[in-house]
């Protein structure tokens, strides 16, 4: 167990160090989500009456597309550098390597969320509170696990940019439904926040278990 944690930590640290030095992904994602919010702000004619209805949808749309880019890059970069094989030809467990990649990709998306959530509050005038942040962070965990699994699967095919959304988006729908409800309530709409967050946690557990089991078969061939 300690060995797996050490491997996952080394992989995540390596990915985050590479991103910190190259700054390839996070600045671009940050700009993307802000632009998406600006466009939505003009396109939807937002006012105080409809902001809490429209803002959660805009948030999840921006988050989903930013996530597809972040998780897609996690394995595409390894393939382009031909470094994934070198990593997999070590005795380190594939599940630990996968966990490290998923943790790094999730942290990069969280960095993007650190721009997205305040910008959403600024542009849409919606509340920015702990419930909102918690709901988005909890959803990010399961979305990262699923996104990275499919990114690993499609990394070896040419049409990966098309395949990744096709495979990932349908399985992200539960997170968007439950997360959307939690965010709406956090922004002041009526509903049961705890129930929505509990559902998100259930999805997180389910997909973390499934992806860690599947990672071995996906990465080891």
């Amino acid at each position, binding site marked *: 167990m300690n*060995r797996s944690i*050490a*491997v996952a*930590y*080394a992989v995540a640290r*390596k990915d985050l*160090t*590479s991103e910190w*030095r*190259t700054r390839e992904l996070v600045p671009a994602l940050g700009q993307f989500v802000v632009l998406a919010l600006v466009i939505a702000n003009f396109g939807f004619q937002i006012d105080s009456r409809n902001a809490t209805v429209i803002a959660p949808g805009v948030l999840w749309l921006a988050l989903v597309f930013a996530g597809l880019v972040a998780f897609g890059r996690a394995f595409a970069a390894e393939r382009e*550098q*031909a*470094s*994934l*094989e*070198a*990593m997999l*030809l*070590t*005795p*380190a467990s594939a599940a630990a*390597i996968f966990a490290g990649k998923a943790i790094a990709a999730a942290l990069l998306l969280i960095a993007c969320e650190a721009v997205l959530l305040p910008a959403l509050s600024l542009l849409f005038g919606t509340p920015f509170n702990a419930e909102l942040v918690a709901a988005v962070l909890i959803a990010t965990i399961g979305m990262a696990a699923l996104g990275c699994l499919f990114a690993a699967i499609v990394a070896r095919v040419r049409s990966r940019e098309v395949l990744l959304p096709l495979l990932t988006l349908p399985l992200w729908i539960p997170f968007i439904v439950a997360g959307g409800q939690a965010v709406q309530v956090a922004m002041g709409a009526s509903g049961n926040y705890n129930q929505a967050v509990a559902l998100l946690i259930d999805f997180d557990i389910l997909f973390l278990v499934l992806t860690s089991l599947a990672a071995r078969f996906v990465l080891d*061939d």
Partner: protein
Amino acid sequence: MSAIVAHELTQRYGSEVALDSVDLALDQGEHLAVLGDNGAGKTTLLRILATAARPTSGRLEIFGLDAVRERKALRARIGFVAHAPGLYPALSAVENLEFFCALHDVDRKRVPETLDLVGLTDVARRPAGRLSRGEQQRLAIGRAVLHGPRLLVLDEPDASLDSGGPDLLASVMRDRTVVLATHDHALANRLCQRTVVLRNGRSLGAGTRLRVVR
């Protein structure tokens, strides 16, 4: 004791046969050169020996272990240098090797001595992406021997290396079983006791270096 015993190794990609019923036997400590034109099947054979690919059919034992079923256990004993260096360009030479120390669960103290072995001590802190192609190849060779493998599988390791390349290869190959693919017959003759020639995925024959090279 045999280091490698391969029986009728075959690799197919759809209808294309990349490797066709190749037999191979190598004792521990022996150095084997794999020669052949482009597309002869050298890389396919080496990838199977490095456990990076599974053969479509045939049997392969490395150090007495089944190379397909027990490949995880074998990976600690095999070092592989592939065509592409496969380095992390934003990480320095030291950081690249330290990362692989973590994956191999070996002490980081091996990093300085490995950098010294491959002649990269002076550029140890330079990002791998800013190393020359030859230096990157040296770093890839260093990564392959970092964990002290008993079997070294080298796919054209002399590509991009300067005139000191053969000496470097000789030093990392010492006391190890080695399978080396190359187009350089002189290098094969210098570094390996035995040679096998592949053409269109088939073995044309194996022998001592003198018989085959001449």
